């Protein structure tokens, strides 16, 4: 039995896929009598099976040497494309995280999507989503990961576009797909190049390939940048960050997945590609710069949002920015820790706000207030989720950050300041949202609110427990092993006070947000500078406007121009030739007199001209020889 479970670990992603396929009769309306609920139950059951299977495999496999499963997919000419899976405690753990959060999100959706008529379609997409994600978790092949990332892009498109009748949803789905696609095409370029440079696209062999120093600097740089682009799109990093914000138009349970593990999937691919970035300093620097810009920019933007989902989605970008920095600094362990702690805390936060949105039918935080006494589980979720995300109380994020800055890794001053800043801004943002939503007076939309039904409450409570216990899990799995790093003698002073500073930054953030004045009105400040900054942040630094007047404008007008060119110049030339032929034809028809003398004259005249030309150019003998050869 145990062997069986271990040997068939590769099957876990297929549970989700099977669930997705089984929902088809309901989503296509072939079964209507039962309503869409059976489809939901089937999917939850399949995910539960995947989770149980994964748990057994994870426990059995603990501390064993990683194994590889190789499927030879395409072998043609001199190319061998293999799909490699890596079975290790790390990858199985990642898969557990995926199936676990997926299970909770799907149970959560039972309550959230209860009244939606196309629930079956939703569950089908979630199953598809889960399959792709758990595949990425155990994939050891860049090609397979790319394929699964594209599956994610597709299912994100369909999930964001789930309520496709609403105009905002339509643009959001389109932008999500196209933005990610930009990254993916660049990534595909990178994959094509990488494959052509003589490696077989297996992650675990990249390191030995890189050690042979295979590429000139320019190629290495371009390759590195192309490979970064895919994860930049997936993890919603600047400049491809806006889709995540817009994607909030989709159903909330999908948002739970998207903000916790889907973004992590992109980061996971980035982490596995990390050896390639070591040969290109430019690529490493690009990672750090992109990560830093996104971390600070998104943290600031989050503070100015009034849509409850968007306050959190920008914070997702910010934390993923930190992951990018760690990869750029080659601190892969920290990157993984950050992903785990962020994913769990963010999932919990999104459940909490999903519960709020469902019960208040609003996403605008300025219309809320006083929910703490009415929705205790939701309030606790938000509090615990926030505590898990900012480094103040000894929960997941605190231990991760502590490990990052405690001297084991080389921490430059700018990095410390950046971490402190992100922590400080996140603390402000979450406290601000908490005050507006849960504290204060109740308002029109929050007066008659009750706690969510059990399908939503149970996942929330479970995840609260997981978040609270996360430090113990991490300790237990020895992921925090190096938490008592050695201080080197000449470590700079800031490294020694980093951990206290971290706590202080979180505390200051919370305090500031608790004391600052919060206006519930939507009125904008009258002072020019305040208004300028508030608008700048509220409208995401106007990035979408900038896109509108640059890239989008360029493509749209280029398309119009080529289309015009095609219609009037290329086709016009052709039609002109046709017209000329017709005209010359109709002019020539006046020669058709019907008199045989004229025809004979024309023929003789033509042949005569030909002969004269042949004699003149001296080709006469050639013609003569040719014809005489027939008679010999």
């Amino acid at each position: 039995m145990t062997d069986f479970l271990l040997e068939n670990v590769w099957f876990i992603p297929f549970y989700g896929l099977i669930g997705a396929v089984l929902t088809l009769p309901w989503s296509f309306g072939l079964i209507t009598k039962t309503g869409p609920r059976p489809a939901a139950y089937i999917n939850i059951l399949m995910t539960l099976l995947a989770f149980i299977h994964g748990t057994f495999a994870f426990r059995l496999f603990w501390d064993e040497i990683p194994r590889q499963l190789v499927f030879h997919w395409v072998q043609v000419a001199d190319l061998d494309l293999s799909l490699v899976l890596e079975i290790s405690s790390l990858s199985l753990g990642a898969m557990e995280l995926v199936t676990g959060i997926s299970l909770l999100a799907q149970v959560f959706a039972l309550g959230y999507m209860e009244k939606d008529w196309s629930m079956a379609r939703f569950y089908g997409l979630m199953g598809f989503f889960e399959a792709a994600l758990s595949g990425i978790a155990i994939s050891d092949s860049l090609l397979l990961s790319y394929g699964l990332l594209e599956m994610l892009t597709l299912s994100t498109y369909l999930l964001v576009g789930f309520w496709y009748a609403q105009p905002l949803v339509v643009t959001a789905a389109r932008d999500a797909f196209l933005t990610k696609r930009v990254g993916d095409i660049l990534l595909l370029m990178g994959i094509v190049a990488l494959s052509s440079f003589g490696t077989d696209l297996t992650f675990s062999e990249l390191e030995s390939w890189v050690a042979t120093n295979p590429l000139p600097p320019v190629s290495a740089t371009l390759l590195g940048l192309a490979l970064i682009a895919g994860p930049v799109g997936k993890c919603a990093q600047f400049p491809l960050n806006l889709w995540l914000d817009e994607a909030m138009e989709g159903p909330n349970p999908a948002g739970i997945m998207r903000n916790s593990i889907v973004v992590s999937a992109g980061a996971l691919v980035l982490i596995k590609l990390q050896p390639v970035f070591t040969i290109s300093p430019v690529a490493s620097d690009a990672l750090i710069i992109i990560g830093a810009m996104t971390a600070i920019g998104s943290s600031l933007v989050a503070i100015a949002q009034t849509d409850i989902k968007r306050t959190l989605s920008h914070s997702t970008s910010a934390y993923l920015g930190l992951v990018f920095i760690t990869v750029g600094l080659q601190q892969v362990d920290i990157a993984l820790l950050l992903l785990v702690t962020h994913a769990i805390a963010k999932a919990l936060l999104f459940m909490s706000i999903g519960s709020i949105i469902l019960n208040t039918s609003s996403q605008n935080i300025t219309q809320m207030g006083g929910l703490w006494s009415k929705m205790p589980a939701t309030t606790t979720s938000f509090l615990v989720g926030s505590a898990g995300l900012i480094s103040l109380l000894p929960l997941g994020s605190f231990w991760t950050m502590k490990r990052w800055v405690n001297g084991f890794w080389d921490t430059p001053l700018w990095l410390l300041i950046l971490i402190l800043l992100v922590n400080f801004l996140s603390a402000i943002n979450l406290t601000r949202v908490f005050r507006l939503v849960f504290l204060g007076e109740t308002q029109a939309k929050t007066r008659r609110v009750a706690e969510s039904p059990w399908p939503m409450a149970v996942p929330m409570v479970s995840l609260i427990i997981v978040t609270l216990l996360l430090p113990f899990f991490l300790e237990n799995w020895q992921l925090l092993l190096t938490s008592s790093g050695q201080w080197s003698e000449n470590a700079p002073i800031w490294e020694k006070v980093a951990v206290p500073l971290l706590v202080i930054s979180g505390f200051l953030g919370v305090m500031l947000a608790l004391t600052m004045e919060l206006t519930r009105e939507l009125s904008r400040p009258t002072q020019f500078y305040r208004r300028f900054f508030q608008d700048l942040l509220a409208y995401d630094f106007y990035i979408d406007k900038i896109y509108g007047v640059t890239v989008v404008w360029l493509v749209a007008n280029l398309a119009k121009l080529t289309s015009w060119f095609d219609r009037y110049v290329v086709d016009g030339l052709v039609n002109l030739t046709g017209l000329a032929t017709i005209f010359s034809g109709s002019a020539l028809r006046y020669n058709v007199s019907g008199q045989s003398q004229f025809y004979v004259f024309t023929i003789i005249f033509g042949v005569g001209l030909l002969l004269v030309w042949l004699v003149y150019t001296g080709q006469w003998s050639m013609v003569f020889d040719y014809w005489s050869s027939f008679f010999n």
Partner: protein
Amino acid sequence: MLSVLILLPLIGAVIISFWPQKIGENDSSPLHKNLALLCSLVILFWTIFLVFQFDPNQGGMQFSENLTWIEWLGLNYQIGLDGLSLPLIVLNSLLTVVAIWISSETIERSRFYYALLLLLNVGVVGAFLAQDLLLFFLFYEVELIPLYLLIAIWGGQKRGYAATKFLIYTAVSGILLLASFLGLVWLTGAKSFAYGPLLSQTLPLATQLLLLSGILIGFGIKIPFFPFHTWLPDAHVEASTPISVLLAGVLLKLGTYGLLRFGVALFPQAWQELAPFLATWAAISALYGASCAIAQKDMKKVVAYSSIAHMAFILLAAAAGTPLALVAAVAQMVSHGLISALLFVLVGVVYRKTGSRDVDYLRGLLNPEKGLPVVGSLMILGVMASSGIPGMVGFIAEFLIFRSSFPIFPVQTLFCLIGTGLTAVYFLLMVNKVFFGRLTPELANLPPVQFSERLPGLVLAVFIIILGLQPNWLLNWSEVDTAAISNQLTVNQVQLTMKN
């Protein structure tokens, strides 16, 4: 064995054209359709039989047939099947069934229509099988007439213009091909137009270049490449759906097939001289087609321009000319055939139900109660397949093309990759406008879609997914024979370097 493929549709066409239009009081149009369908199904089964008889590892022509025809002219009835033509024959047989299936039961002058469809099939199959240059040319021209009539009689409003344009373009293409073929045979002093002996021609490079240019432009019109493409959007827009399916799915492949068979294989030396230019041409054509597609308002035009973009990738692969590239080129032919056929079938259903293909007019068709949800879902699938989403045949074909061309023409390949990226842009804009959003009141009472109307789309979608997950089935057929063609290129290269 192979002649059956040519004779069957011919016999079918004859029977249908002599079948009475009316039996008693009943109009027998539906009967004509069923007869044609039966005929095409028999052809399909025969093709499948051939597939199982075919040995992909053998290399060279199989089931060859050789009949002396017009000896003094050097024209012989010489046909054969190899790994290059087999996938295209299968594609043709499948799409002919699809085209007849989706033809309207109450089409006017049904006898004539189905007879022409089957005659078209004769021309296409003959061209794919011909092992004699002149025979190829004859079939290539034979296919032209039924297609002209099919567009000119059963087309849309501007059908006369579109059909004539198509006719003139393809006729020019034929003349150029004929000129090159004649030149090749006469200059080498060959006794006949047989294909095999010509493979070892040793003409001077300048002559080769001249002859190859004729072939390139000739097939370039057929495929079509920029700037010879303007007949295609017009023809697609005016042609009825079944004809569009055949046109995009099979007839364009005659051009790319010819490019490999008569371009790369016959003139390896000249081909290598021109290869960098061809790759650049492919990149320009791909980007041009994609860019034009973005601005189109007619769904059929979007798909038509996307054809131009996707067919250009085949030129890129052919220019690269490695064994991998040529297998990929064949795979892309099949992939594009299936995907564009699917898209045209679906656009056809939308047009039949709503009476429009205008992306600005159509809206919200994904609506599950009153819209076309299954057609919409299939459309999303087809669009994703065309954009190269993995798991479908479009991805593996294009990936192999780019992977094989990148080491040889990196810059051109990257530009073609941008073209792939743009696919998502124009198709997504189309799908978003047509299927998403709120169903407008004018569109709220659409006639329901029958299962029989969905079936062809479903079948094509299944093929697209199966070949996407298991591409070996497609690649293995042509691997040996394309490697042989590519081998000639490399042999030539070695000779060239030795001369220097």
